[in-house]
Each structure stands twice: as structure tokens, then as C-alpha cells.
């Protein structure tokens, strides 16, 4: 079965082609069957391939489809490389992607762009699969850009509204800044290694570079630039909250299965380079730590349900970056997987709420949905609990606890990382349950108009189950010590060396994390259910700060001032295009001669004869003096 690996990205690609070319002529039933069915088949194939791969016991499987192109030293193959890391990613992408597709069938049923939507979704999944299965960095970059393109198409899916188009362009342009850095990084990698094959680079890197080699640091920083752009980390995080302009399933797909996790994948994949560049790796952690706090505080102040989730994604990806910064690679991948489950769940549930309430996004106009939409409520609650890392029962607890523990105890960890992660955990718990309490508790403020059907509730229930049970494949030392996930990744990703004699503190750390998460939930309960006045007072007393956080720490305004305004100013100065002036001048000279000589064409025959005579005399005179 493993030789069918190439079919996994090909199936979504084919169905995207079908839907693009004949989609508008298909009925929605058939379009849905093709669109969701292809991903479903890919998910089934993934499980079969995965079973084969795991039972074969091999470390990696390579499938070369064809030689893509060859130029000088550079020989690029269209090859898929499956190892334990890409296995996790394709499992999440196809499986979560499939659930999102099922959900979209009902969510988008009334939309006139139904088949177009599925075509984009399929292409999105296909690009992401190519990205994680790529055997070389050129193919990875193809998937990387494909993901960027599809995010642009999907964020601007409802293009008739101007602000959606704006959000789409913003996402495209800002991620492009990171992509440029990454492309330069790839060029530099090529000059060093004369190959862009990932495995060759990873095996040669320790031989070519010593730890801390300046070239390694520069390349690691450039690749980090690409990762920061795609994964919406500081300072390129501003596109993600605006990306909420797209339909809810798109947000679920971007945040859970595709796109934003590409950066995590890239850094994990190139982890050997980062281990040779400790400075760059430290900065991965610093960026993660700052981002998770910045985004967490912003999430506290939002009133749009989806924007809270958007900021929480930025914050959770920050946790993954933090984990990678301390070298906890498998913890980052584990958190990625669990995050994919609960974030897809939260977005899909939020989408169902928004649909049930006539496209109402404002949480403060929701309320009281606990009894009206019980399935949505319970699944959303489970997702929120997992996001807030409520202890012992949720998957989020186990994945986040691992990151916190390694930030504290890992050799590369330090107190600041740990404190940032800990503060982030409290803030996460508060904003998550603020969202739950405002949306589902209290009085009903908007009438429920649409009760979600099976296609919406079943994916939610499956994802909710995964958000609870997914954590039990990796349990900490203190609770059972069951390490299926990190054992599975261990041939590929090294485990973290702990500081000496620190293991005894693990209980304390876990207890603190658990208490803080529960404390955060209780705090939110007091503020938004018991004593709503207090939250209003806090808000009015710190109104300036509240607004500052609400605007996402004014990064948009800063970039407007630094980049957009000067650019617009320059383009206004150069409205007439300096270089174009030269060509306009040519045109003017030609026109001048034309208008002069046109007078000689008088239409009077005798003038023409005169012209011939004068010309003949001139030529004869010249031929007298000039000997040939």
C-alpha cells in the first residue's frame, strides 16, 4: 500500500481540477461528493499507508515521481518523502481536512460559489500535502506558495465585499515578506551544499558547519523569517486576525490543518540546522514567547468570536515556537497535532453558532445558547477546555504541560521562557472561558434561526473526542509515563536533555500549571457570570490599554506609518513614472517631425516635380564631388 503514497496529494489535486473546469455545471450533490470524497479517500489512503509504514519498521520511504527540472548543479525531483514527522502532518491534514470538508457541505450549501469553494479547499489541502511530503526544498517551496495562493483565494472568497478583498491581499502580501526571506535562505543553502535535497542537507550540515557557524545562523534566521510569515508570529502576525473575513471552515482549515503550521513544520524539518545555530534557535523561542503573550492579551479584549480564536491561534503557535526554541521538537509537533484537533473544533463550532444566529459575529449579542444549541455547546466547551489546558482530562493539558515543563527543565530553557509560557497559560484560560461564558451563558440576545444538521454535528463530535482522548498517547513521567508519540518521533527528532537534578520539580510545575489554568477559568467565571460589573469596571478604568490590546498592540498602525504611508507617498510623487518620461519624449519628437513634414505633402503636382528636380540636382552635385 505504501507505494500509493503519491495518490494522497494527487487525489485532492485531481478533484480540484475537475471542480475548476466543470464545477459550475455540476449539481451541489456531485460537487460535494467529488470535493469531500477526494479528501476522504486521501484520509483512508493515509491510514493504509501509515499502517504499512509503521509495520514495515523502516525509517523513511521515498517515492520519486519524476525528474522535475535540471539546471547546472541543481537537480530537482518531484519526489515524496515519508517519515514519522511527515506522517503526523499528513494524518492531521487529511483527517482534520476531511472533517472540515464534511462540515462545509452543510455550511456552504446555500452559497452560489459552492463548487468554487470546494475547488479551492481541495487545492489548499493538496498544496499543504506537497509541502509536508516534499523531498527537496524546491518542491516544499512550491507547496509553500500554493498554500499562500489558496489562502488568498479563500480569505477573499466572498470577494464582492471590499474589506474581504483587502484582508486577502493583506494576508498574501505580508506572508510574501517572509517568503522572500525564505527564498534567499534557500539560495544560500544551495551555495553551501550544492543541493536542495532536505535529507542531503541535514546529513551534510554537521560536517560542513561547526556549532554557531555564521552561515548557519544567517540561513537559520532567513528560514525563520519564512516560518514567521506563514505561521503569523511577531512581527508578521497582523494578517491572521483579518483573515477571519473568509468563511468559517476556511478559518478552521488555515488554523488547524494547513497554512499556519507550515512554519512549525519547516523549522522542525530543518532542526539540525537550528541546532547548529543556537542564536537563531534562541530567537525562535524568544519570538514564540513574545508572540504568545502579545496575542493572548489581544484575545482578552476582542468581541468578535472568530477574532478571539484567531488571536488564540497566534498565541498557541507561539507555544510551538517556544517549544522549538528550547529544542523540544516532538513537544512542538505534539502540540501542533492536539491544537489542530481543538482549534478546528472551536472554529467549526463557532461557525455553527454564527450561522445559527444569522451571521452574528459579536459575542456580546449572543448569550444563552447553552440550552438552545446543546451539541454545539458541549463540543465547544470541550474544545475550550482543551485550549485552556484544563488538567488531566483534556489533550491540551498534556501537550501544553510538556512545553511548559521543558521550557523550565530543558537544557536550553530558561526562567523567562517559563514565565512567559506560564503567564500565557493563565491568559489563555481567561480569554477562552470569557468566550464560552459570554457566548453560551446568560440571557439569549439573538434568536436562533438555524439548527445545525448532522453534517455539522458529527465532525464536531469526532473532533471533540480527539480533543479529549488525543492527549493520552503521550503522558508525562508523573502521570503514567506513556510516551508513544515521542518514541514514535524519536528516530528523527532528538529528545531534550534536562538540567541536572531538576526532575523532582516536575510535580510542582504540573501542579502550578493546573492550578493556574483552573484559576483562570474561575476568574473568568467571576468576571463574566457572577459579577459582570467588575469586568465592565476593569474595562472602563483601563480603557486606553483595552483599546490598545483590542487593536492588536497597534501593529497595523505602526506598519501603516512605517511602510504603507511612505510607499503611497512615493507612488504619488512618481505618479507620472520617471522612466516613462523618456519614452514619452521619443513620442513627442516623432510627432513634431510628423507635423512638420506633413506640410510638404501639399497635393500640388508641380511641387512634387520640383522636389524630384532638386533631389536629382543634389545627388548629381554630390556625385561630382564624392568619388565612390
Amino acid at each position, binding site marked *: 500500500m505504501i507505494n500509493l503514497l503519491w495518490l494522497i496529494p494527487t487525489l485532492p489535486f485531481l478533484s480540484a481540477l475537475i471542480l475548476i473546469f466543470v464545477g459550475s455545471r455540476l449539481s451541489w450533490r456531485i460537487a460535494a461528493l467529488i470535493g469531500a470524497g477526494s479528501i476522504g479517500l486521501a484520509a483512508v489512503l493515509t491510514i493504509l499507508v501509515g499502517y504499512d509504514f509503521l509495520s514495515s519498521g523502516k525509517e523513511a520511504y521515498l517515492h520519486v515521481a519524476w525528474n522535475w527540472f535540471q539546471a547546472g548543479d541543481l537537480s530537482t525531483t518531484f519526489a515524496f518523502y515519508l517519515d514519522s514527522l511527515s506522517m503526523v502532518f499528513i494524518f492531521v491534514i487529511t483527517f482534520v481536512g476531511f472533517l472540515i470538508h464534511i462540515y462545509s457541505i452543510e455550511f456552504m450549501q446555500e452559497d452560489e460559489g459552492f463548487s468554487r469553494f470546494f475547488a479551492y479547499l481541495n487545492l489548499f489541502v493538496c498544496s499543504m500535502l506537497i509541502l509536508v511530503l516534499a523531498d527537496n526544498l524546491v518542491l516544499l517551496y512550491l507547496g509553500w506558495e500554493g498554500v499562500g495562493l489558496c489562502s488568498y483565494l479563500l480569505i477573499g472568497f466572498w470577494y464582492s465585499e471590499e474589506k474581504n478583498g483587502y484582508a486577502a491581499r493583506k494576508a498574501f502580501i505580508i506572508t510574501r515578506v517572509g517568503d522572500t526571506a525564505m527564498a534567499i535562505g534557500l539560495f544560500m543553502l544551495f551555495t553551501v551544499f550544492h543541493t536542495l535535497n532536505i535529507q542531503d542537507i541535514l546529513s551534510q550540515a554537521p560536517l560542513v558547519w561547526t556549532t554557531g557557524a555564521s552561515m548557519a545562523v544567517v540561513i537559520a534566521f532567513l528560514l525563520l523569517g519564512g516560518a514567521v510569515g506563514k505561521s503569523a508570529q511577531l512581527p508578521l502576525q497582523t494578517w491572521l486576525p483579518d483573515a477571519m473575513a473568509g468563511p468559517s471552515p476556511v478559518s478552521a482549515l488555515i488554523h488547524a490543518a494547513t497554512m499556519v503550521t507550515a512554519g512549525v513544520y519547516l523549522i522542525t524539518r530543518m532542526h539540525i540546522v537550528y541546532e547548529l545555530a543556537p542564536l537563531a534557535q534562541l530567537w525562535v523561542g524568544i519570538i514564540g514567547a513574545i508572540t504568545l503573550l502579545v496575542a493572548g492579551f489581544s484575545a482578552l479584549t476582542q468581541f468578535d468570536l472568530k477574532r478571539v480564536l484567531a488571536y488564540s491561534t497566534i498565541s498557541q503557535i507561539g507555544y510551538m515556537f517556544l517549544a522549538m526554541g528550547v529544542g523540544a521538537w516532538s513537544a512542538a509537533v505534539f502540540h501542533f497535532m492536539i491544537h489542530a484537533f481543538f482549534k478546528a473544533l472551536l472554529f467549526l463550532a463557532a461557525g455553527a453558532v454564527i450561522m445559527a444566529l444569522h451571521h452574528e459575529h459579536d459575542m456580546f449579542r449572543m448569550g444563552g445558547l447553552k440550552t438552545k444549541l446543546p451539541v454545539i455547546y458541549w463540543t465547544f466547551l470541550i474544545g475550550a477546555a482543551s485550549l485552556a489546558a484544563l488538567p488531566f482530562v483534556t489533550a491540551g493539558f498534556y501537550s501544553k504541560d510538556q512545553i511548559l515543563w521543558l521550557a523550565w527543565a530543558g537544557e536550553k530553557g530558561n526562567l523567562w521562557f517559563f514565565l512567559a509560557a506560564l503567564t500565557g497559560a493563565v491568559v489563555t484560560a481567561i480569554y477562552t472561558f470569557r468566550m464560552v461564558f459570554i457566548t453560551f451563558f446568560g440571557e439569549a440576545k439573538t434568536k436562533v434561526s438555524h439548527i445545525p444538521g448532522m453534517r455539522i454535528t458529527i465532525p464536531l463530535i469526532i473532533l471533540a473526542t480527539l480533543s479529549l482522548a488525543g492527549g493520552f498517547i503521550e503522558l508525562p513521567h508523573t502521570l503514567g509515563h506513556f510516551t508513544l508519540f515521542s518514541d514514535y518521533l524519536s528516530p528523527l527528532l532528538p529528545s531534550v536533555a534536562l538540567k541536572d537534578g531538576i526532575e523532582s520539580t516536575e510535580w510542582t510545575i504540573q501542579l502550578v500549571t493546573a492550578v493556574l489554568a483552573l484559576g483562570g477559568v474561575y476568574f473568568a467565571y467571576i468576571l463574566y457570570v457572577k459579577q459582570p460589573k467588575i469586568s465592565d469596571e476593569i474595562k472602563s478604568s483601563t480603557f486606553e490599554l483595552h483599546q490598545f490590546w483590542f487593536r492588536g498592540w497597534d501593529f497595523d498602525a505602526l506598519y501603516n506609518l512605517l511602510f504603507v504611508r511612505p510607499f503611497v507617498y512615493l507612488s504619488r510623487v512618481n505618479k507620472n513614472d520617471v522612466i516613462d518620461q523618456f519614452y514619452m519624449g521619443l513620442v513627442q519628437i516623432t510627432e513634431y517631425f510628423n507635423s512638420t513634414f*506633413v*506640410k*510638404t*505633402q*501639399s*497635393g*500640388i*503636382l*508641380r511641387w512634387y*516635380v*520640383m522636389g524630384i*528636380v532638386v533631389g536629382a540636382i543634389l545627388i548629381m552635385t554630390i556625385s561630382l564631388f564624392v568619388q565612390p
Partner: protein
Amino acid sequence: MNVLPVEMGLLLAGVLFTLGLISVLIRRNIIFMLISVEIMLNAAGLAFIVAGSRWAQADGQVMFIFILTMAAAEVSVGLALILQIYHHLKTLDSDAADKMNG
């Protein structure tokens, strides 16, 4: 027998040619212009004859016959054109036919 020097013959041809050219330039009546062109053609023919007799070659006379044939064709086309111009403009003034100015 007195042989006329070549220079005289060529001078006569040159004078005839110049006279024809001048009258093409100054005449406005289109028939006179046609006649002047004929004079110029015959001047050229005369130059050929003179040159042919000077070098004792038949080529000069052959060229003259060519010119004669060409002149006949030219006159027939020219007269037809003149008829058409008169038909349209009701005048023989060549300056009146200046519609093709730039």
C-alpha cells in the same frame, strides 16, 4: 560631309530637356504639362541617338525605339487620366487636383 560635333548634339538635347522641365514646372494646364514631358523624353532620345552615332553603335537607336514605345504608352494613359480629371473637376488646372494633401 560635315560631321556635326557630338557636343552640339548633346547641347541641343540638354537645352530641349531643360526647356521641357521648366515648362512642366511653370505650366498649370495639365495638357501642356503632358506635352512638356514628351519634349523631355525626346530630348533624352536625341542624346541616345547622338551618343550612338558617336560610338558607331546601334544601341543608341535601340534605346530610342524603346523610349518611343514607352512614350506612346505614357501618352495613352496620361490622356485617359486627363479626361477623367476634366470629367471630375471641370477644369484642366493641375493645382485644382490637390485633394491628396497631408
